[in-house]
């Protein structure tokens, strides 16, 4: 072994010192999180070195690249994800505004066109009995169904988001870790972003006067938690993780499946990856 590869005593001491410092920081952060004294999400532009405005002080957005997977072959249309999202994110309790939703595709024998509905369909709302709870009505029980499947939908957190491009004030932006967020304190409420999104992922919150959409539960994922919809999914149809971590659920999902994205022709480059969807899904 050449001399160059032998660590010197000084270098070894410096390494151990850095390790100790990191451990102290991590411990402090865990303690702070446990005590619930970590600050809430604030502005977008602070550097991670300053860190004070971030949900967790030791969260470094340059070290993550979040991604979302949907395995439509697993989804059973229970809509727990939709209800969990509404509760977690204070989404208006009506049947017209959602951060996430589930679509049902049904091919009936003898029909050329696929039948598509979602939880907001009046028949489904009638079945649930409320605009705040959701279920799919058993409306095809007497039909001969050839093929049927559910597709969970949410914001695609695109790499080239059309919504961010058109925002006149920069209130909506893409974070370093790949999440498209909205600064509700800066949004002017013009709704250009709602129009620009080809996926219908955005809605306008009339009470707050601002646009809103899925954040992948940014307040949770930056604390090491899963998005609410992923957390409650009983069948693992929703997968979330860090694409920079090759062993994360999303990395494995992308690696082990032939995935596709919605409307690739728009050039938006979505970061929600689908398995098991059919040609009608867009």
């Amino acid at each position, binding site marked *: 072994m050449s001399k160059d590869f032998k660590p010197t005593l000084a270098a070894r001491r410096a390494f151990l010192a850095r390790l100790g410092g990191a451990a102290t920081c991590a411990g402090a952060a865990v303690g702070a999180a446990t005590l619930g004294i970590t600050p809430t999400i604030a502005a977008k532009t602070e550097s991670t070195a300053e860190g004070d405005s971030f949900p967790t002080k030791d969260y470094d957005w340059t070290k993550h690249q979040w991604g979302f997977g949907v395995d439509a072959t697993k989804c059973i249309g229970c809509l727990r994800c939709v209800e969990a999202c509404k509760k977690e994110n204070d989404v208006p309790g009506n049947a017209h505004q959602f951060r996430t939703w589930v679509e049902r595709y049904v091919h009936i024998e003898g029909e050329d066109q696929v039948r598509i509905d979602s939880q907001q369909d009046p028949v489904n709302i009638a079945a649930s009995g409320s605009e705040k709870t959701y279920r799919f009505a058993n409306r095809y029980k007497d039909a001969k169904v050839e093929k049927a499947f559910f597709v969970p939908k949410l914001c695609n957190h695109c790499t080239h988001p059309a919504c961010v491009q058109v925002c006149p004030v920069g209130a909506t932006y893409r974070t370093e870790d790949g999440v498209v967020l909205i600064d509700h304190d800066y949004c002017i409420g013009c709704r250009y972003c709602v129009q620009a999104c080809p996926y*219908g992922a955005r809605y306008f919150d009339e009470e707050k006067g601002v646009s809103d959409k899925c954040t992948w539960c940014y307040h949770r994922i930056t604390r090491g938690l899963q998005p609410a919809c992923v957390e409650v999914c009983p069948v693992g149809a929703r997968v979330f993780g860090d694409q920079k971590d090759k062993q994360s659920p999303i990395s494995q999902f992308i690696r082990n499946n032939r995935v596709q994205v919605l409307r690739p022709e728009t050039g938006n480059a979505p970061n929600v990856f689908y398995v098991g969807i059919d040609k009608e899904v867009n």
Partner: protein
Amino acid sequence: MEPVIQFAPYTGWVYPNETVFEWSVLIAVYPYLTGLVAGAFTVSSLYQVFGFQRLKPVAHMALLTSLSFMIFVPTPLLLHLGHPERAFNSTITPHLTSAMAMFGFFASFYVALLLLEGWFAYRPFIVAQAQKRTDLLGRFYRLLTLGSYDVSEHAMGHDRKWIFALAVIGIPAAHGLHGYVGFMYGSLKSREWWSSDLMPVIFLFSAIISGVSLLAVLYVTSCKLRKLPVDLGCLKGLAYTIWAFIMVALVLEGLEFANIVYKGREGVDMIVQYVTGPLLIPYFILQFAVGAITPFLWLSYMIWRGTSGRALVVGVTVCACLVLFSVFMMRWNVVIGGQEIAKTGKGLLSYQMPLFGKEGALMAILLTLAPLGLLYVLIRLFPPWSDAATHAHT
């Protein structure tokens, strides 16, 4: 109690969030007003820059009309914003990739240009009034002179150079402003109905015909109110202008529609179902047949037969009213129509326009007519007539 949000009935498959119409009738009024500004300015430019002497009787009114409508252009937008108090965010911190971010700058620049050109155009009148009047209005005119009372031939020559330069700058400014409005829709790839390279040009030409038509109506109305004969040469000039530009507007709109259908991309079935169903009357009948083809044929007939006198006045006025209606329908069919075709390409929605409220029909009518109120005040303060000895527009 009225619900906070209005839900839209729909057929077929639409995304859940689409069941609320986010851009209301006010967003149709906004490009309509902008178009009238650009069109009115075109008339002013035809006289000031291109020397169309026959348009002289309406040249100054064109400036005042342009200014009156331009001042009201931001109002539908402000009423529509969720946070109007943050409107200036787009000017203070413009997000440069956004087509909308430049609006504040374009609009402010254009208002400043109109004020400046108006000031130069009216300077002899302002000076005369300032020297003649001793009342409160005299004080107002004295303030407007900005301390300059020189109306010598040398000074007037200087002013004319300024007017010419401002009118020249104003042509791209006015048309750029309106073409840009078209780009705001045409650049969106989320809707097939909007996503068209032709959209800015279509907006531009429809703007020109609407503005010229407005001036024709205003001119004839003013003559009737003032009990003066209509200058038929001027009216013919306006009619020729409408006739020439309406052809281009029609061809462009036809081309755009043909492109959508011929290319037949995903979702075209729904578009065809839409235009032959709910949009049949607003689009083919009202916008095209009644509002564009009828005045085009009528104007063609009058030009061919050399119609004159009362028949010409009535004919041009009615045609101009039809064009004004057609262009509003065009704005409606773009803004509302675009949202009635679901982004899914598999469903149709139906816009229910409320009568009252800040985004209702009455507000839309009020905002469209309000500039006429301002124009009335401006006309009283700055008479635009070139006839009689009203002032020095000679």
